[in-house]
């Protein structure tokens, strides 16, 4: 199971076991949700938006280790960022999980998700929470679903 340690790095296993910011955010003024109808993953993301800044982010839901860890890492990485910054971080993440290329200039704990690119079926798992969060931040609270073309 060599490749699996790429996918399930200890950071991932840790965030899966002890997801950070796994809670309802009482001060949230935006809520996003996402689901992967094909496997039953469901996620709700709470965003406290102040102007165009995400002052706090949390989530709840169920899903595989990748989706749980990605959501947990997301809450840490988006907190305090502007919507534009959040989108840039997601763009980097998306490139990384689809190509495996890690942006050496912007290294962060998100690099733990780089192994996902070897498992194309799991890319949806890594991006679901991010879609929900960004859509919510941008004012689109329609549930996201992995069935939409593109991730």
């Amino acid at each position, binding site marked *: 199971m060599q490749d699996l340690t790429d996918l*399930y790095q200890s950071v991932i296993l840790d965030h899966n076991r002890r997801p950070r910011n796994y809670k309802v955010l009482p001060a949230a003024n935006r809520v996003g949700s996402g689901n992967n109808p094909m*496997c*039953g993953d469901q996620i709700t993301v709470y965003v406290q938006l102040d102007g165009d800044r995400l002052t706090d982010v949390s989530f709840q839901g169920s899903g595989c*280790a990748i989706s749980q860890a990605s959501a947990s890492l997301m809450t840490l990485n988006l907190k305090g960022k502007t919507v534009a910054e959040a989108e840039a971080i997601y763009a980097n993440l998306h490139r990384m999980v689809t190509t495996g290329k890690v942006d050496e200039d912007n290294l962060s704990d998100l690099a733990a998700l780089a192994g996902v690119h070897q498992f194309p*079926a*799991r890319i949806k798992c890594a991006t679901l929470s991010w879609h929900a969060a960004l859509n919510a931040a941008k004012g689109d609270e329609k549930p996201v679903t992995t069935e939409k073309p593109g991730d």
Partner: protein
Amino acid sequence: MNNAWKNLRADFPILNQKVNGKPLVYLDNAATSQKPQCVIDALTHYYRKDNANVHRGIHALSLRATTGYESARERAAKYLNATEPGEIVFTAGTTDSINLVANAWGDENLKKSDVILLTEMEHHSNLVPWQLLARRTGAKLRYLPIVAGDTGLLDLAQLAKVLTPEVKVFAFTHVSNTLGVINPAAELCTAAKKVGALTVIDAAQSAGHMPLDVRALGCDFLAVSGHKMCGPTGVGLLYGRKVLLDAMPPYRGGGSMISNVEYFESKWAPAPAKFEAGTPNIADVIAFARAMDYLNDLGREAIAQHDEKLAALAYAGLKAEVPGIRILGPAHHRSGVVSFDLKGVHAHDVVTMADQEGIALRGGHHCNQPLMKKLGLSSTSRASFYLYNTETEIDRLVKALQKISKFFAS
């Protein structure tokens, strides 16, 4: 087990490959089965020698195609012990077959005060078409529950309470694709008949796995998918009692389902043509019949025994060797479908890890969302067996799950 079982794995070319460096162990048979070379050959032979449109042609190829197509109908009728070939409508699969009944029979026969009875373990294919029908007609949906706990058996003690005279149709699965439960189909049909309800059996998981006799079952309709029983994708059938098919309006409009068309009105062909609008899936229908012949040659009772043996081995092995596993479905008298939940490990993680070992499992809700919710789960992992699976493969499954459970526990 007869001679056809010798060297049976060699009949399935796809099994002879490695996945992630390990010999493939294909345990996703409830989703779709693999195809023996004879079925693949039936397709290539058709396209290399006989291909033509059916029914409307009288040149040599068209006659061969028509003869092949109608011979498939005869063999399908025999396979299910239907009274005549005219009781077999070829469709695109189980989902299409059930929609056919819900539309053509349902819209014509249901009204607001009627009840559609289903069970709590239905696949979305035997659930959503009835929800849509209920919405169109105002009829009510009602469910026969499963007993509490993880065996997933139907709660037959409740049957008399839910199967009342308002029930006009009772649609249920023969074998659950998630629980492995084999329902007492004949008994349910007898009970339905007593209150005057028609019965629709979803035989997607049983038609290729055990002897099946529509007259012994006493059902009115029965839906089958070819791809789950060694046949090609895109083809299936609906068995319907002839008097019911004859009385039903058509399903889709188009060529071949008509007897006379004018600009402002048309008359329909008799069943089964009435339900087969357009150019049918000729090649796949012919190959589907070849698959039925193949299963008959092996012996369908032998297949059922083989499935049951593997399921029992897997059930016992997983239970004994894998800490924290929760196995759904009954311990005995089950089909070759074993779903389980590994404590603290999501099904997708289980499937990805098993795939690294060359083992093909399925993870998710298995088109059984409401049942999952009822069982307090969002998804399960599922191993499902068929005639080409072996005891050695069950060993590999059990070992892989030990490893996975260890990996996540560490």
